[in-house]
């Protein structure tokens, strides 16, 4: 019997998408789910999404939005991909910060930056920061450095909202250490086995060229990984009372 687990990320207060994705995971008989954070932001139901994650006791690490909301910052400090995203992001922050309950803020504050299971490491952005983007085309050296220095074989991340699986094979790191005034460098090189970065994309705010929510399923035994794109095109409608005071922070809600 194989042991599969699902990884979700960037839920962004989109309750309908979260419910649809979790139902899809349940239907596959997958019991272990890990969440890579960003429960809030953009979408209209931050408290409901936080409470859903709490009810289901899903191990979750802290995302950049989760961190900034509890720190009282008026915007996520990450660079936005466009003027539109920046303006929506600022509005969503103000709106969500006023509405997230104190109890839920305490929960967000309690989330760890990383989760680890054996040689699997789960982070929101990178092992260094919730705000760092591990983009699929970043240099192989930098990517390998992030995985290796965190002591992981497979690094699960989100943040970019674009799912991908990147294999880093035949890597080596050469380190040269030069002490003050001493020009006799000591140099060490090590060859590394294959490392992987798996980005789960986004459940609540996909940006991979389609409106489908994404998550990944990973088989602990074989290492097989699949990116699941799940259509959430017929979500439950947002309550009219919510529509009235909700600023347009995300399309279609």
């Amino acid at each position: 019997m194989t042991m599969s687990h699902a990884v979700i990320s960037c839920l962004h207060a989109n309750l309908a998408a979260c419910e649809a994705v979790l139902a899809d995971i349940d239907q596959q008989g997958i019991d272990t789910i890990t969440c890579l954070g960003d429960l809030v932001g953009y979408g209209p139901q931050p408290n409901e999404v936080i409470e859903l994650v709490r009810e289901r006791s899903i191990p979750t690490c802290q995302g950049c939005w989760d961190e900034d909301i509890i720190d009282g910052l008026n915007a996520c400090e990450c660079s936005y991909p466009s003027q539109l995203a920046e303006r929506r992001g600022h509005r969503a922050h103000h709106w969500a910060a006023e509405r997230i309950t104190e109890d839920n803020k305490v929960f967000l504050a309690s989330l760890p930056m990383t989760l680890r299971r054996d040689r699997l490491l789960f982070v929101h952005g990178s092992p260094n920061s919730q705000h760092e983007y591990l983009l699929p085309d970043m240099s192989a050296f930098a990517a390998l450095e992030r995985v290796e220095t965190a002591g992981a074989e497979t690094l699960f991340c989100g943040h970019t909202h674009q799912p991908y699986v990147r294999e880093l094979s035949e890597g080596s790191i050469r380190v040269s250490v030069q002490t003050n005034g001493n020009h006799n460098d000591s140099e060490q090189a090590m060859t590394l086995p294959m490392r992987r970065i798996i980005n789960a994309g986004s459940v609540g705010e996909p940006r991979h060229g389609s409106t489908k929510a994404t998550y990944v399923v990973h088989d602990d035994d074989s290492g097989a990984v699949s990116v699941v794109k799940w259509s959430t095109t017929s979500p439950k409608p947002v309550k009219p009372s919510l529509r009235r005071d909700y600023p347009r922070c995300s399309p279609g809600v």
Partner: protein
Amino acid sequence: MQNTWLITGPPGCGKTTWIRDSFLKHQGTCAYLRLSGSEQDGLQQGHNAGIDSTWLQDQIPELLDLRTTAGAPRPTAPRLLLIEVQQFQPPTSSGPDGIDPQVLRQLEVFNLRPDRSLHFGLDPELPHEDVLDFKRLESWHRNLQGCVWDPNSLSSFWFELVNGAYGDVYRAKALMNMPDGRSFLCNWMVSQQSSQFLPLEAVEPPAGRPNRTSHLVVQGRALDPAGIESTIDDCLLTDDVLELHQAPLRDRQHALQSNG
């Protein structure tokens, strides 16, 4: 000799593309005229904002647009005149008798009488892949003259627009200005897999707001104009931000000229 053809068809069936291809194949002088079609119960016409005419004139600079050149003296008589009309239903009969009376009245103003009338979905020499039978259609448009888009925001907005964030959009067409002076024809039809983003040949210098046709026309059902407007406003550049985009481009152009 002048060939005057009336080309009709429902929204998004490929009228303008077919007309452009016909002009490019034609050896002689070409002229174009876009007329308004009739509205029917529940079927609103897409606003004639000059998008088609601007696009065709960009692609074929010597093209005569009869709407703007009708009163001017013409050095040579047009050889191929194509008249475009959005028309939801095929004509009841072929030939001049089948022409919509409202279109006939407009033709009289220009003293024109088509010698051929072709309808998409009816005449086999026209492509028919994108001919859809619309039952209900709302139309919305916004003049964007002088407006300049943040490019990444335009990409997001267009993606949302054609993926149902603001209602069921069946057809969207626009000319959009970029900060670097380019303009793009953005073209979407529900029957197509993806949108077209076609740059115009004419590029304005990156110095302020361009004074040329820029417009968005959307057709569909249960459209959300307030939502579209709100997002557009978040995508358009202010004067200060536009200058931030354009100043480095001007510097680069000056440097190239100095070195060249």
